[in-house]
C-alpha cells in the first residue's frame, strides 16, 4: 500500500479539552433550545444581571434626585415612574428570580445526584416566559413608565392612573408563570429524582431551602396573578371589583396583593438562607450546627409566612383586632429565621474558618440580615409601625434584608460556585476587596435611612423641602450608593477576566463537601459519568486531615501545584510528613 496523505479527519485523535456542558456545542441554537439545566442557569444569569443593571440605574437616578430637597433634574411625575420602575424591576424581575433560577437551576440536579431537572423543556419555557415578561415590562417602562409604585394600590392603579399599568401587569403575569414553572420543576426533582442513598436528611441545606421556596411559589404566585389580572380587567373592561364608587373595597386589593407579596419576600430570602448555609458549612469546614433545625425552619418560614400579610396593612383601615393577630404571628415568624442565624454562628465556633471572599459575603450576611430582621420587629409591632410605616425606616429595613441579605448571599454563592460553573478560578484578592466595598457602601447607603425614616421622612416622596434636616442623611445615603454601585459592578470585570485569564479549576478547588464537587468543573452535560450512590452524611468533613484542608486552600491560590508548599518552601506530597 502506497503512502497517501492523511485527511485531517483521519489523523489520530489530538488530546482535546474534555467535553463539558459549555463546550459541547457552540451554536446559538444549542443555547437557545437547550434542555440542559446548567445552560439555562447561565442564560438566567445574564438576563437577571441585565435587569439588575437596569434596576440599579433607576436607583442611581433616585439617589441623585434625593440629594436636594427640591429635586435636581426630574419632575415629580417622572420621579414616581422612576421609583416604580426600580421597585418592579428589582422585585419581580430580579429578587424573586435570581437565586432560584441561576444557582437553583444549576445546582439542584447536581446536589441531588440527578442528570437534569424533572422537566427540562418546562425549564426552558420558564426562561422564555421570563424573557417575554421582562421585555414587556421593559417596553412599558420605555413607553412612558408606570407611576403606581410596585404595589399597584387600587383605585389609583385600576381607575385613575394614566400610565402603562396594564402593559406592565401583563409582563409581571408572564414572569409569575415563569416562577411557577420553576417551582414545579424543583419540587418534583427533589421528591422524585434523588440519587440512591440520598435521603432527605442527607440533602444539602440549599436544597431544603429551595424546596421550601418552591412550595411558597406554588401556593402564592397564582394569587397575585389573578389579583393583578383583576386590576387589568378593571382598567380595560371596567369590570368593577375594587372600585369604591360602586361599593367595591380597595382594601380587598391590598389583602390579596399582600397575601402573595409577603410570602414573596420569603421567596427572595429562603434561597439566600440556603446559599448561606452552604457557605458557612464549607468555609468553616464543619457540619452546620443543628442541621435538622435549620432544615425544618425553612419549612416553618414557608408555612408561617402565609399567615402574616396583614402587617403591611396596619394603617389601611384593616380591623385592629386582626392587626393584633398579624402582629403576634409576625413575631413568631422571626423565630425560625433567628434559629438559622444562631445555628450559623454556632457553626463558626471551633470551625476551621477560611476567610476567602465567599466567606466574607457569608459573614456580612449574618450581620446585615440580623439588622434587617430586628428592624422588622419594630415594624411588625403595630404600635411602632403606625409611626414608622411609609417612612424611610421601611425602605431601609427591606433593603437590609433584600440587598444585605439576598444580594450579598447571591454574590457569595456566585463566587463560591463560579469555579464549578465556569471551570475557572478568579482573583480572590479582588473579590475580597469587592466584598469589603459592598459591605461598607451598603451600610453607608442604608443606615442613614433608618434615622431619616425615624425622623419622619416619608417614602416615595420626591420633595422634602419641608424637612430640610434630613438632607444630610440623604446625601450620606447617595454617597454610599455610589460606593455600593462600584462594588456591584466590579465583579463583572474580575469574574469576566477569569474566563479568559483564570486558572483552570479542578473538581473541588475549595475542598468542599457535596455531590456537585464530585464531578468535573465545569460538569459534563449529564452531570455525572455514573449515577452516584450516596453513602456519607452531608457536610461530612474529615476533621483529621489538615493536609487535605491546606491542600485545597492552596489549590485555589496556586492551582496545579503538586503537593503542599509550606511556608519554608518545602514541598510535602502527602499526609503526615
Amino acid at each position, binding site marked *: 500500500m502506497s503512502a497517501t496523505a492523511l485527511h485531517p479527519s483521519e489523523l489520530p485523535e489530538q488530546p482535546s479539552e474534555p467535553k463539558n456542558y459549555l463546550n459541547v456545542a457552540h451554536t446559538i441554537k444549542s443555547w437557545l433550545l437547550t434542555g440542559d439545566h446548567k445552560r439555562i442557569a447561565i442564560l438566567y444569569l445574564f438576563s437577571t444581571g441585565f435587569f439588575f443593571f437596569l434596576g440599579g440605574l433607576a436607583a442611581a437616578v433616585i439617589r441623585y434626585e434625593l440629594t436636594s430637597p427640591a429635586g435636581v433634574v426630574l419632575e415629580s411625575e417622572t420621579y414616581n415612574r422612576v421609583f416604580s420602575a426600580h421597585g418592579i424591576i428589582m422585585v419581580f424581575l430580579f429578587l424573586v428570580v435570581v437565586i432560584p433560577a441561576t444557582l437553583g437551576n444549576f445546582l439542584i440536579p447536581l446536589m441531588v445526584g440527578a442528570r437534569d431537572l424533572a422537566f427540562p423543556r418546562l425549564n426552558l419555557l420558564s426562561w422564555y416566559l421570563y424573557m417575554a415578561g421582562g421585555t414587556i415590562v421593559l417596553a412599558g417602562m420605555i413607553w412612558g413608565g408606570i407611576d403606581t409604585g410596585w404595589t399597584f394600590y387600587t383605585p389609583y392603579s385600576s381607575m385613575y392612573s394614566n400610565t402603562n399599568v396594564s402593559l406592565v401587569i401583563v409582563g409581571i403575569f408572564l414572569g409569575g408563570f415563569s416562577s411557577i414553572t420553576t417551582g414545579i420543576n424543583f419540587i418534583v426533582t427533589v421528591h422524585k429524582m434523588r440519587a440512591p442513598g440520598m435521603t432527605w436528611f442527607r440533602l444539602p441545606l440549599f436544597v431544603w431551602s429551595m424546596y421550601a421556596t418552591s412550595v411558597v411559589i406554588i401556593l402564592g404566585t397564582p394569587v397575585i396573578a389573578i389579583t393583578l389580572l383583576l386590576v387589568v380587567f378593571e382598567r380595560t373592561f*371596567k369590570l368593577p371589583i375594587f372600585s369604591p364608587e*360602586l361599593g*367595591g373595597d380597595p382594601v380587598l386589593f391590598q389583602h390579596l396583593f399582600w397575601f402573595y407579596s409577603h410570602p414573596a419576600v420569603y421567596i427572595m430570602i429562603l434561597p439566600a438562607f440556603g446559599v448561606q448555609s452552604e457557605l458557612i458549612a464549607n468555609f468553616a469546614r464543619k457540619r452546620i450546627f443543628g442541621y435538622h433545625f435549620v432544615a425544618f425552619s425553612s419549612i416553618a418560614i414557608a408555612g408561617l409566612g402565609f399567615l402574616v400579610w396583614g402587617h403591611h396593612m396596619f394603617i389601611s383601615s384593616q380591623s385592629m383586632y386582626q392587626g393584633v393577630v398579624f402582629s403576634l404571628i409576625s413575631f413568631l415568624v422571626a423565630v425560625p429565621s433567628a434559629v438559622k442565624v444562631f445555628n450559623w454562628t454556632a457553626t463558626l465556633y471551633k470551625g476551621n474558618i477560611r476567610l476567602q471572599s465567599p466567606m466574607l459575603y457569608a459573614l456580612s450576611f449574618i450581620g446585615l440580615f440580623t439588622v434587617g430582621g430586628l428592624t422588622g420587629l419594630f415594624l411588625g409591632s403595630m404600635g411602632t409601625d403606625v409611626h414608622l410605616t411609609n417612612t424611610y425606616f421601611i425602605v431601609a429595613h427591606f433593603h437590609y434584608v433584600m440587598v444585605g441579605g439576598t444580594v450579598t448571599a447571591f454574590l457569595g454563592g456566585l463566587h463560591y460556585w463560579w469555579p464549578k460553573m465556569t471551570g475557572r478560578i478568579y482573583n480572590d484578592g479582588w473579590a475580597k476587596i469587592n466584598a469589603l466595598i459592598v459591605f461598607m457602601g451598603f451600610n453607608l447607603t442604608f443606615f442613614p435611612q433608618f434615622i431619616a425614616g425615624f425622623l419622619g421622612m416619608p417614602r416615595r416622596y420626591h420633595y422634602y423641602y419641608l424637612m430640610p434636616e434630613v438632607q444630610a442623611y440623604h446625601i450620606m445615603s447617595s454617597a454610599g450608593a455610589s460606593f455600593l454601585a462600584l462594588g456591584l459592578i466590579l465583579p463583572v470585570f474580575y469574574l469576566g477576566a477569569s474566563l479568559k485569564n483564570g486558572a483552570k479549576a479542578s473538581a473541588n478547588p475549595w475542598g468542599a463537601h457535596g455531590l456537585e464537587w464530585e464531578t468535573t468543573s465545569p460538569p459534563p*452535560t449529564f452531570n455525572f459519568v455514573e449515577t452516584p450512590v450516596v453513602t456519607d452524611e452531608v457536610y461530612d468533613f474529615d476533621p483529621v486531615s489538615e493536609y487535605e484542608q491546606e491542600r485545597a486552600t492552596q489549590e485555589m491560590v496556586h492551582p496545579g501545584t503538586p503537593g503542599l508548599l509550606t511556608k519554608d518552601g518545602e514541598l510535602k506530597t502527602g499526609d503526615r510528613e
Partner: protein
Amino acid sequence: MAAITHTSDHSHDDHHGPLHHQFESIEQQNESYIVGMWTFLVTEVMFFGALFLTYTLYRAMYQHDFFVAHEHLSIPMGAFNTIVLLISSFTMVLAVHFAQLKRARAVIANLWLTIALAGVFLVVKYFEYTSKFADNLYPGPSFTANKAVFEHNGHVPEIDLNHAQIFYGLYFGMTGLHAVHIIVGILVLAALARMWMKGNRLVTEDFVPTELVGLYWHFVDLVWIFLFPLMYLMPKPH
C-alpha cells in the same frame, strides 16, 4: 463510593420509547409527571381561590342585591351545563381507563365525546352571555340603569345597580376565566386525540399523558361544580 454503571452516552430517546433521558425508569417518569401535574393544579386552585374569596366577601356584604341580580341567570341553562360537564368528566375518565388498557379506538372515541360535550357547554355559555348583553348587564360604562331588567314574577325589586354591577363583574370574570380554561382544554384534548389517531408512541405506549390531560379536565369540572351553586342557586334571603 460504589456507583451504578450508567453511561451518559445516550442514543436518541425515541429508540428507547417514551422514557426521557433524565429519568432512571418509566415508573419514576410517570410518578414525576403526576406529581408535577398535581402541583400545577394546586396553583390553579389558588388562582380560582382568590376569585371565590372576592365573591364570598361581596356576597356577604350585599346579600340582597346579589340575590336580585342573580335571578336574571337561567337556572335551566346552568343545570344543563353542569350535567354536560359531569358527563364529559365521565367520558374523560373512560378515555384514561382505555388508555391504561391500550384500546386506542375506545380512547379516541371518548376523547372526541369529551370535546363534543365541552363544545356543547361553550355553545350554551354563548347563549347565556348574549342574553346578558341584550339586557345591558355587561359591567362597564354601559351597564344598565334600568332596574326593570330584574323584574321577577311581575314586580321590580329594589336593587342597588352598583352592587349588581359588581355581581356581574364577578360573574363574567369567573365564568369567563373558566370558559378560557375549557377552550384551552379543548385544544389540548384535540391535540391528544390526534396523537392517538396517528399512533404516536408517546401516548400509545404510556397512559400517563392521557391521565395528565384527564386531571386537568377534572379540575375544570371541579371549578364549575362550585361555580354553579354559588352563582346560579343563591338562596333567597330569609
